[in-house]
């Protein structure tokens, strides 16, 4: 039987297909029924060394809805980290106050280092440009909920595929489910080569294209990410790219797409996705954002061993 009690949630390289499905099934249970006493007497330490609204608030909400408490690092700049304390020392101290730790940090691998340092479960809420596994669980949950399956789908990823940790995590997770992938990006923001090799080694069929129209009619799901201005040295270049990857209802009307296409976005969106899309049957990104709470309830309950599936 699958159990994740005592496990850290750091990277999709750590999970089997069965473990992924276990979390997704438990998320469904969490969404269907409240569990107000599950975490009574437990404390989650929330260490966000980088700004976050959605991830941080949905973790806090999940813990509180399950009857637990949350302690937070209010402003990392004002804490002992600013006095030069090592990340390991900070995490070691905080682990003495809590049952589990959730951490976001600008450096790649910071969550793994934290997990290696303490015995209580550590959950990665984003480490640099590496992984963002809890976002990926809610992305998978949204795909499963809106498409009815994860198996055999064709998924397009569009936007910043080079620095987007949500894309990296999701592509690795979907490699378990016989998925075909299209990577749609400007040349300067292509998927990292080592990741493409890794996907190929796992038997994933993929194609890289520069424009959505080269793939649109094949897609069951389109996963959009934000293209950030700071990735471009030349503002003119950024302007061109921004225009080419802007999605709106009018853009979709001009393309061949499947009727059942679903569009996901980890949010926040800025200019890459127009509000005209919001009322179309394709848009599921707000539903996706709302899944953050039940999915994080499922993750917290399973690593703390307070709820087994069923």
């Amino acid at each position, binding site marked *: 039987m699958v159990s994740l009690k005592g496990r850290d949630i750091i990277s999709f390289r750590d999970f089997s297909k069965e473990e992924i499905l276990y979390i997704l099934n438990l998320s469904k249970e969490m969404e269907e029924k409240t569990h107000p006493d599950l975490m009574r007497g437990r404390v989650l330490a929330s260490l966000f060394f980088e700004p976050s609204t959605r991830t941080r608030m949905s973790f806090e909400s999940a813990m509180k809805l399950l009857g637990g408490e949350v302690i937070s690092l209010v402003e990392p700049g004002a804490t002992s980290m600013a006095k030069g304390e090592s990340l390991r020392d900070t995490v070691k101290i905080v682990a003495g106050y809590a049952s589990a730790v959730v951490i976001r940090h600008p450096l*790649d691998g*910071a969550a793994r280092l934290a997990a290696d340092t303490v015995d209580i479960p550590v959950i990665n809420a984003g480490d640099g440009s590496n992984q963002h596994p809890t976002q990926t669980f809610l992305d998978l949950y949204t795909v499963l909920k809106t498409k009815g399956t994860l198996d055999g789908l064709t998924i397009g990823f569009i936007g910043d595929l080079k620095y987007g940790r949500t894309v990296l995590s999701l592509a690795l997770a979907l490699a378990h489910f016989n998925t075909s992938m299209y990577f749609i990006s400007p040349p300067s923001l292509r998927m990292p080569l080592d990741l493409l090799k890794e996907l190929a080694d796992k038997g994933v069929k993929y194609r890289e294209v520069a424009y959505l129209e080269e793939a649109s009619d094949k897609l069951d799901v389109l996963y959009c990410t934000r293209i950030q201005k700071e990735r471009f040295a030349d503002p003119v270049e950024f302007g061109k790219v921004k225009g080419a990857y802007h999605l709106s209802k009018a853009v979709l009307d001009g393309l061949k797409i499947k009727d059942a296409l679903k569009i996901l976005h980890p949010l926040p969106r800025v200019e890459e996705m127009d509000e005209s899309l919001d009322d179309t049957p394709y848009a599921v990104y707000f539903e996706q954002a709302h899944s953050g709470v039940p999915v994080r309830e499922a993750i917290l309950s399973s690593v703390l061993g307070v709820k087994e599936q069923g």
Partner: protein
Amino acid sequence: MTVKQLQVSAIKNGTVIDHIESKNTFKVADILNIENETQVVLVAMNLSSRNLGKKGIIKIEGKNLTQEEANKIALIAPDATLNIIKNYEAVEKKRVSLEDELMGIVKCFNPNCVGNHEPIQTHFHVERKDPPRLRCHYCERTMEGKDIELM
């Protein structure tokens, strides 16, 4: 009649590192810190080799390689062989081979990796031995070839 002669003189007891790709001979010599050796050290390069074209060879009297040195040599010169010499005879011959985990001997090439910012030992998982492909335990990026840099 032709007399076969050793291209490099023999040592009595110690280690011979053979089949080093010629241009990497001095990198291997650096790994072995030969400048601080007090016993006989013989270094040769551009010797003819059937497999490598040109090879280097290092012979060190009285030397036993540490595991760390063997790991480093396996990264720089994956074709190298080790001969353990006792009383002028090679009593053991083996290829250098990487361990599955490398601790504190390779630097991560990712400037944003936590291993380059926190006071910790670097840690790599060896995904492939020949040619070496390493995955950083922390940032999970993979390194091959020129990206692999010793500490």
